[in-house]
């Protein structure tokens, strides 16, 4: 099983989860690997849950990651981080954006949004390799709240540096080149800064 890296990305429609997985799959390809990505379009703009899968490896067959097979978990929103927590491998690498987006069911119903302590304790039951980042806050400080997705990828890029995979040649430049290709030209600079800010956040994680 260790001849691939299986990423599971979860978030809420509108958070840029799909762009992040698009960057991720292309980084895999640029790093000299086979790479595949899968997601479902159609409802993602309507504030629903969004799930996306990316796989890297010397040989990759399935575009989907089955439950229990994700070894890297990138959660763009805290409630979604909890929702899919039982789908990741015990010991998986976890990166969670500390953003809360309240669903409609909270507004009309009686349920409450789970608190941070609950989230951290549940994550700790699955893995010790978890990082929490205020990516939205970092993005805001860069003057563009839409680049939080790239901040998260910046953080992820640091965490992946000690992963080894046959045939993988991955540097920060690989990431930056792909980002420059995948975002609209006028947002290339702010996205590059977002990536660097994400990397720096790993030096002193929240």
């Amino acid at each position, binding site marked *: 099983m260790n001849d691939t890296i299986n990423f599971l990305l979860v978030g809420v429609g509108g958070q840029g989860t799909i762009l992040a997985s698009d960057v991720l799959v292309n980084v895999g390809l640029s790093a000299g690997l086979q790479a595949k990505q899968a997601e479902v379009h159609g409802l993602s703009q*309507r504030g629903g849950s969004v799930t996306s899968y990316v796989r890297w490896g010397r040989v990759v067959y*399935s575009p*989907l990651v*089955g439950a229990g097979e994700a070894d890297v978990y990138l959660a763009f929103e805290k*409630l979604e981080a909890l929702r899919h*927590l*039982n789908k990741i491998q015990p010991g998986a690498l976890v990166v969670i954006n500390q953003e809360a987006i309240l669903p409609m069911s909270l*507004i009309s119903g009686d349920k409450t949004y789970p608190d941070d302590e609950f989230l951290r304790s549940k994550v700790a039951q699955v893995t010790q390799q978890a990082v929490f980042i205020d990516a939205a806050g970092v993005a805001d400080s860069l003057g563009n709240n839409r680049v939080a997705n790239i901040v998260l990828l910046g953080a992820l890029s640091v965490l992946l540096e000690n992963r080894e995979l046959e045939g993988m040649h991955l540097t920060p430049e690989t990431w930056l080149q792909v980002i420059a290709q995948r975002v609209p030209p006028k947002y290339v600079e702010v996205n590059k800064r977002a990536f660097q800010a994400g990397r720096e956040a790993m030096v002193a994680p929240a």
Partner: protein
Amino acid sequence: MIKMLSGNEAVARGAWEAGVAVASAYPGTPSTEILEYLARYPNIYAEWAPNEKVAVDVAAGAAYAGRRALAAMKHVGLNVAADSFMYAALTGAEAGLVIITADDPAMHSSQNEQDNRTFAKFGRVPCLEPSDSQEAKDMTIAAFGLSERFDTPVLLRLTTRICHSSTPVELGERIEPSRAETKKFPRNPTKYVMIPVNAVQRHFVTEKRISDIAEMAETFPYNRIEPGERSLGIITNGVAYQYAKEVFRDASILRLGMTWPLPEKLIRQFAASVERLVVIEELDPFIEEAVRLMGIPVEGKSIFPITGEFDPRVVRENAVRVGLLPVKAHVALSTVDVGPLPVRPPVLCPGCPHRSTFYVLGKLKLPVNGDIGCYGLGLESPTGNVILTIGCMGASIGVAHGAARAGSPERQVAVIGDSTFFHTGIQALINTVYNHTPVIIVILDNRTTGMTGHQSNPGTGQTLQGESTTEIEIEPLVRACGIKHVKTVEAFAVDEIETTLKEYTRLDEPSVLITREPCALLPEGRKRWLPLEVIAEQCNGCALCFRVACPAILKSSELDERYQRPKAIIDAALCTGCEICAQVCPRDAITFRPTEN
């Protein structure tokens, strides 16, 4: 050059490289992007048709005229197009004709998960199924070749995981079609005029044709044996092939790229070379039953589910259960229990112009029959279920009419979007007028095809390839159908919608209300975004605005002093300023937009 392409992008690329000249489609997840990508290539005519039946007619006409053509649709679109698909299957064409069906196992965005391979068998046409984006491109090209070689339409069957997975693709160049020269339209009535005397002859031709294709299937390059251990042989297709490869590293595999007609000799040869034969295919036991009819012992749906989609886990755990894999292959799941979490279903967006109609319909408590589109998201509101039935494209009006004719004592309502009305709503409206039944029809005109991501339609004045065109106006069309009571109102005008609907309930004739406002996510809708505010001192937490069910209206942590109820607050990042909540608020506690000068 290698590029990451989704299956849909790859099909579009393949069609372009194959020299396709004409492409027609109606948008539908997961197929929509095929035409969106194709429309951007040079030297191609690509269009949105009002429905899939028209799309297949258009593609057939182009192929009759000697140019390569395709029609693309989601799986249920082929139900709409079935009549046309069946005649095209009889006639064949002068140039390649490819019908693309994008099936949706697991119903990510569909009302059913029908397996359209059955249509290939039904129509005596070949069915090709790629397993990744590279094959999606290559097999699209192959489909055109096959179509011309055997004078048959070809069904290219994709599934959601092929359409919406991105995998590397080696790009090629466009091959200008061998039949690119404009030919004279064929004068060949025995082939193209399907009156009984000709159709009888064509039936013989198509039966011979499908058996010739079956012969060719024995050496079709996308049907291939990947030899492995003798103990287990797997026959598989489409994306299931990837899961089989992932899970069974040592098994022998027969990958079928053409799943109809089947290569009987190849299957027999493969079956004879292995000890246990298993079919791994999503949805119907289509290959399995055919193999069993050959008299070959085979397993399939006794092991793997007939419902939903597969993934490596589904394949592996079922294989472990029946002893195809050792118990040690089982992957344990984490036992973490996160308890019940608040759900996050897709909802009508903030600023959605449909929201006011659903708010009023919820209030009036009339039985509402729904249709296919974003307004399916208005299914539930805090006031309870608003929409009581949803079947398929264009069903709402006929269902409401039938219920009324059955003597339903309540006034039946049908809601249908602009694009869906053009798709198959018009005939049902005519039926209601012709058979004079007093149902209320609400046409939710948001000036686009919303759910599939803003495609143009006959009411938008734009074509797929960005040309300005005649904008078909709904109100005159409705009048021309014989409706006497029709009114177009601004979609955010809550009171006017309520007054009109109440008025309509007293009529003994059919009536139509058109609510008109661009989708809030369209560029012209976005330009109007301006967040409103709650004036906290005036809000007493009456919760009426929560009934509007807008994601931008939240419960505040501040309680009203007198009633101890949470006040409302508005999330400025989400609010578009549609003013529905402001109109509903009985205490003028929500600001309106500043009056425009």
